[in-house]
């Protein structure tokens, strides 16, 4: 009976997971070896995979995604930790601030993307330009989404803006589980702020940080609504993400096999890097 306990715990979760996550994974994996026509299919072996690897646009988008991953993950972790740390230092207003920081996170992407698109217009009427123009920081409106570099920066900024509250909340919760007396012991030992962070805080929250950064990395590879709504992948494919590319191949051109192959080429890479991240950052808390 005792040995069966874990399986009892896992039964329900696994059932849902298997039906709605595993089965689709297997289905699309199989499909990556076919050319699919909704009601027809044709076996093509590895040619979908070969096509993906040989497509220069795929590599360009892959490069975009690496940039997204690096900037958004580091940005959100650093800012999230910083802000969570600041919040633990204040008593009054902690709830107020954390609520407001969280608002971007809980506003739906559909809405956020559209509002930001409005605010990032290229003329003087859109919000960012008019503020910058009025404070005389720039002399003519910037075409945020119309030029490759600024478009990419805009997307990155949007990702960080929307996501940092998420990381922050998780870090805040984790920081709050650290018993106060550990800090007191550290202070007694003569450790300063940075020392306390390295020796007390970080080790204790490292599993959470590791998991969060792995999840943020996965999130960076799955960037979709921001790009889809704001730029559609342009200008010149500078903001295109892997998922928007797959989506277009699958649902506009009906290259389901091709898109699945792309997904499965990427999966091992993302998995590998995330696992590395978790292992590197997490330390088992034993004492």
């Amino acid at each position, binding site marked *: 009976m005792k040995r069966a306990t874990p399986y009892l715990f896992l039964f329900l979760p696994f059932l849902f997971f298997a039906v709605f996550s595993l089965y689709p994974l297997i289905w699309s994996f199989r499909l990556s070896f076919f050319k699919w*026509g*909704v*009601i*027809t299919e044709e076996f093509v072996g590895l040619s979908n995979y070969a096509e993906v690897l040989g497509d220069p646009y795929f590599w360009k988008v892959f490069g975009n995604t690496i940039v997204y991953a690096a900037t958004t993950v580091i940005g959100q972790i650093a800012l999230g930790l910083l802000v969570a740390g600041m919040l633990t230092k204040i008593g009054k207003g902690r709830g107020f601030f954390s609520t407001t920081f969280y608002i971007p996170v809980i506003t739906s992407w559909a809405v956020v993307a559209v509002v930001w698109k409005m605010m990032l*217009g*290229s*003329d003087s*009427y859109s919000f960012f330009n008019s503020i910058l123009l009025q404070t005389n920081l720039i*002399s*003519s409106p910037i*075409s945020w989404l*119309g*030029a490759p570099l600024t478009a990419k920066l805009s997307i990155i900024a949007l990702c960080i803006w929307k996501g940092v509250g998420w990381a922050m909340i998780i870090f805040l919760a984790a920081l709050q589980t650290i018993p106060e007396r550990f800090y007191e012991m550290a202070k007694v030992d003569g450790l300063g702020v940075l020392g306390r962070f390295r020796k007390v805080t970080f080790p204790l929250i490292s599993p959470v940080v590791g998991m969060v950064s792995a999840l943020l990395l996965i999130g960076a590879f799955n960037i979709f609504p921001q790009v889809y709504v704001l730029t559609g992948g*342009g*200008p*010149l*494919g500078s903001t295109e993400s892997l998922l928007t590319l797959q989506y*277009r191949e699958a*649902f*506009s*051109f*009906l290259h389901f096999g091709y898109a699945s192959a792309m997904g499965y080429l990427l999966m091992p890479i993302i998995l590998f890097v995330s696992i590395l991240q978790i292992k590197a950052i997490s330390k088992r808390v034993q004492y």
Partner: protein
Amino acid sequence: MEYVPSDILFQKMVTLLAAGQVPCDICRYDIALTPQLADMGVVLKLDDLAEESGISENDFYPGPWSSCVWEGGLYGVPLDTCCTILYYRKDLLEAENLAVPTTWDELRSAAMKLTKDLNGDGVTDQWGFEGPGGYEMWNFNPFLWQAGGDVLSSDMNTVTINNTKAIQALQFLLDLIYVDNASPPPDLWKWSTEALSRGEVAMGIDGPWGWACARDIFGLDVDTKLGVATFPAGPAGGASVIGGQNLVIPKFTEHPREAMEFVKYLTSYYYQSEMMNVGVFPVLKAASQAEVIASNPLWATVAEQMETARSRPPHPKFAEMNNILKTYLEEAFRQQKTAEAALDAIATEIQELLP
């Protein structure tokens, strides 16, 4: 009656059909994408049903009808249509004593006169002509056709997008930006109706909805300030691009006859002329002669333009071709490729899509 946002529509159709479930008995579907459905075999071939219901090709505008035909079979029935036309600021043209341009040369000279730096800060505040406003066939094809070129040959087996006429069309647009300085560069492109309403542009291109949008969204006094006209004619005459919707009947439906009945109703003279009242242009030639159209300057212009308006290639791989065109045209407009190089690249890639 089910409402689906347009970008999810195809996704839903594909998903349901793949599972063998009927999405609906009739579907209202973009004309450019209808041949793709036909080629996939997921919509019914309608020749017999259409004949039974008395729906005949002659009653409809040729452009929309051609988007329903694939490999000799009829797979849809047109429902509504539209085309793009020229919009201009009456007040800005009058201030320069300019008549509405009717040829490419007039367009160019008018645009050059209308491009101004109003406050002397070295930055152009008013452009003469907005330009194509985008890189897709929807934007470029009118000019392409006005020069006498086309994306594909009429039997759709050869790519013709890189012949001299196409180069001429593209070069015309590029020169307006980079040689004549009468048109804004891509960084500054925006929805032409918005630019027109703010006076940032004196002439631009949009579909019939531009009128209502200028009035309701941007608060422009359209009656005194906004004018409409047909496209200025290129070397080969006038042309415009057709958009609109077709009615298709998905494959697994259990009521094909009743569906067709409804289609017949939707394409009847009565219904088509009523569509005008909600701002949708009919596909039935007879309905477009109605009084309500002739008396309204916007719709009269659209009706006139419809006579030279054509549909984009009705090919199942339209979505991919459009995407290829878009990619390389963007490079051309951003001066990363010459017109010839861009069009050659488009031609090569589209050629790979043809059997």
